[in-house]
Every structure is written in C-alpha cells, then in structure tokens.
C-alpha cells in the first residue's frame, strides 16, 4: 500500500480503498483526489459501487483496506466526538432529499446548524439570530428564499433538493457528497441543481463529489469524471476529454 499523507488543501483524498461484502468485491483499489473548489463526478451503472463508496466516505460503512482523508481528518481512525466533528463538515445530498417533511424549508436549512447549537435551544427550537441569518442567506443562494416558510413536503423535487443544498451551505460544509442527487428529478430541475452545486464549489472552495449515471450531466457540470465499474476505477479524466470509449467501458454490458 502507498503511504498516504493528508493533503494540505482541505480536500478529499482516497487511497487504495477496498471493500468486500462476503466474497463479493464492491470496491477494488479505488484512489483519487478532489481539490477544494473542484467538482468530481463518479459515473457508473447501478451496482458499480457508487453508494458504497459514499457510505465509506462518511463511515456509515467500514472499509476493508485503504485510506480516506477529508481535509485533515483521517476518517477510518476517528471515533466518537472526532468522527461527529468530521461529519459535521460534510454536507450530504441524497437522491430522496431526506428533508424533514412537516418542517418548513427554513427549519430544514436550520437543521444544518444542529451540530453547533446548544441542545436546550434545539429543544425549544429557538436558533440564535446568527444561525437564522446564515440559513436565510443559504436559502437565498439557492433561490429558495421566497419559499422559506413553506413546508418541505409541499415543494417540488427540484426545490427540495435545492433546500438540501442550502442545508449543506448552512452547515458550512467543506466537503459535499452528493449520491445520485438528480436521479429522481426531471432534466430541467436536474440541471439547475447541478449548476448550483458547481457554483457553490467555486465560490466557497468546497470539494464536491457527485455520483451520477447520466454521461451528459457529468461532462457538462463536473471538472473531472471518474468511471466506476464493478467496484474498479476504469477511467479518471478531465470532463472535456471524456469520450465515447469511456462511456462504453463504464456502461457496456
């Protein structure tokens, strides 16, 4: 195994990551970096190992081999408070949005502040002025300010996903992991969500890792595209250089 050092930039570094379920290999020697401000797309068919990779990154799943660094956090060696501190710097975007349905868009964005706000304040649901300002600014950034008081379950899929991005912003994430964020959205909403992800990466120097299964989205919105097939990285190139051959290697039966 290559000896890996934490990168200087606050960015994601994965070195030789492997994961097995029984004797099935789900991730096989996966290595790549994501720089601050960069958007990297993981492209692969269902079952290629994308979700497992994301679960390993947040330590929701354990890995069998390899190393994961998120900024200065060596993820595998963390536990307890250190782990939850590291996690609080990761903004997660899910396919199913995972908003709290009966709460307003604003309350959902405030959920990004839960880690920092004292427990008694959460009990009475009174967030400090500073945190409310942060949440409103985040909603404004994703163009959802006028929906602040609408219940999450009354919003469209694209709107919900934008609220989820605002939650990640309010959390002041240094890393955003988005697992199939546009898989349940129509093409128009998908484009708006992905362009917001790309823009916030640039503006706030956030390292964004996004898994997708549509090639055109990957090449349009990401800086780099990584092809994953049966747990193996089979390509890693700048989005502009991604070609027909890569496409076939990733998806062909």
């Amino acid at each position: 195994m290559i000896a890996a050092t934490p990168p200087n930039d606050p960015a994601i570094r994965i070195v030789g990551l492997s994961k097995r379920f029984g004797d099935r290999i789900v991730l096989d020697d996966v290595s790549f970096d994501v720089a601050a401000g960069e958007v990297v797309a993981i492209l692969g068919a269902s079952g290629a190992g994308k979700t497992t990779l994301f679960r390993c990154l947040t330590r929701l799943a354990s890995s069998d081999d390899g190393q994961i660094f998120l900024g200065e956090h060596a993820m595998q060696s963390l536990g307890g408070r250190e782990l939850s501190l590291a996690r609080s710097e990761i903004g997660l975007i899910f396919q199913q949005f995972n908003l709290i349905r009966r709460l307003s868009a604003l309350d959902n964005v405030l959920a990004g502040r839960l880690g920092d706000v004292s427990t008694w304040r959460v009990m009475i649901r009174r967030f400090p002025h500073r945190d409310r300002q942060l949440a409103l600014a985040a909603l404004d950034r994703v163009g959802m300010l006028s929906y602040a008081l609408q219940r999450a379950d009354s919003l469209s899929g694209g709107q919900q996903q934008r609220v989820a991005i605002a939650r990640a912003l309010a959390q002041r994430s240094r890393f955003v992991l988005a697992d199939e964020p546009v898989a349940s959205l129509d093409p128009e909403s998908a484009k708006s969500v992905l362009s917001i992800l790309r823009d916030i990466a640039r503006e706030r120097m956030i390292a964004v890792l996004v898994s997708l299964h549509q090639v055109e989205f990957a090449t349009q919105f990401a800086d780099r595209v990584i092809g994953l097939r049966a747990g193996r990285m089979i390509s890693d190139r700048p989005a502009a250089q991604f070609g027909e051959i890569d496409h076939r290697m990733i998806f062909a039966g």
Partner: protein
Amino acid sequence: MIEDKAAIVYPDPARSWIAVAPVRFVVTLSLLILVYGFSLYFVDFDVGRLWGGLPRLAHWAAKAWPPDLRELDILGERAMETVAMAIIGTTIGIVIAVPCCILAAQNITPSALLYTPVRWFLNILRGIDSFVFALLFVAAVGLGPFAGVLGVGLHSAGSIAKLWSEAIEAVEPGPLEAAALTGANWLKVIRYALLPDVLPNLTSIVLYVWEFNVRASTVLGLVGAGGIGQELKNSVDLLDFSRLFTIILIILAMVTLIDQFSAWLRRRLV
C-alpha cells in the same frame, strides 16, 4: 386471435399438495367446524333458554318506559366523573408511555439491552384490562374513581406506548440519518427531525385511546371504581329499569359525542 399452432406445451407449475384448491377447501372447512364445535360446546349455547328469557326481557323493557329523569343531575355528574377518569387515566398512560415508547422503538432506542424487556412489560400492561387493574386497585386503595383512574392509566400506558413505538418505527430513516450526520446528538435528532414528523400521529393515537377509555370507564363502576357504572350497577341490583334506561341513554349520548369529537380532532391533525 392467439396463434398456438407451434406452441410449446407448458407443464403446470408444480404446487405443494396443500395449495390444491379442493384440498385447501376441505382442510379449511374441517378446521372451522372443529373450532366452532368446541366453542359452542364451551359457551353452553342454547337457543331455547334465550327463547324462554325473552318475555322477561320484554317485561323489563316495558317497565323501563318512561325513563326516570328525577336524578338527572346526579347521573350527569357521574357521567362527567367517567369522562374525567378517562382524561386523567389517559394522561397517566402518556406519562408512562413516553420513556417506554422511546425504548421500545427499534429505530431510536438508546439501549438494545432494554428493548426486549420493555416490550414485554408493555405487553403485560396491555394484556391486563383496565377492568382487572381497577379490581386490584379497589382492593389496594379503596372504592372510588381513583382506583379506576389507576387501572385505566396502567392499561393505557401499554396501548399508547405500543402504538407510539410502531408509529415511530414507521418513520423514514433518511431524514433522521441526515440530521444525525450534520453532527446533531441523539436528543437533537429526536426533537428536531423525528418529533415534528410523528407528533400528529402520536396525538391521534392519544385521542383514540382516550375515546376507548371513556367507553371502558363506563363499566368500571361495576367493580366499585367510580363513574356512571356505579349507578348502572345500583339500578340493576334494585331492578329499577326506568332509571337504568336513563343511564344507558346518558352513556350512549356521552360515548357518541366523544367519539365524534375525537374523530373530528383526529381528522384535523392529519
């Protein structure tokens, strides 16, 4: 038209012998006959005796008219007592159910070790009727509504906690996980991500149990545990049928009113 000239002959998919329709019919029928045969034997079912008793019932019904309205104020007070018993009893149930339902909901329990014992405890509470609990409490704390309240409270605690924990277990795990991963501790996740989603459901369950408890409380007087049941028993003991008739009317009005009110409230919650 479906062409099947060159069709392959598909063998019928093999079924187990029990799945063959006539076999299943005979087996089901014999089981039903067995169950009903035994049950009728045990309950001494006798149409002749019912027939013989009918004139007596008719005689009483005739004597019940007109209803005796002289003690309406006392009976009204007893009806209020019954509703109050249901309210306080349900509240005791809630207080016990809050910690229990958290321990008994698999997705949020802070202690896998306590999960099973708490489930058992709740099953015991639920398995023993308010009436039986009230009987014990009358012996322990004496006659009156207080014994009834304790009985209703213990039984409801089991029902509420079980229904609550099931409602909590049915919650989508995604939003809880998302909140936990922002760095929120367990208490924050419960309060902020879980409670808003389940609160309408939990309230609806409380109303449902309360409604049930009003009906259950009407008979607690039979064991001396207060409420309008006490008057019911007195009237039956004295064969005072016109008073009994009034009591039954009051119970019907009270139960109907409360069922409607509670159903209306529950509709508004969801």
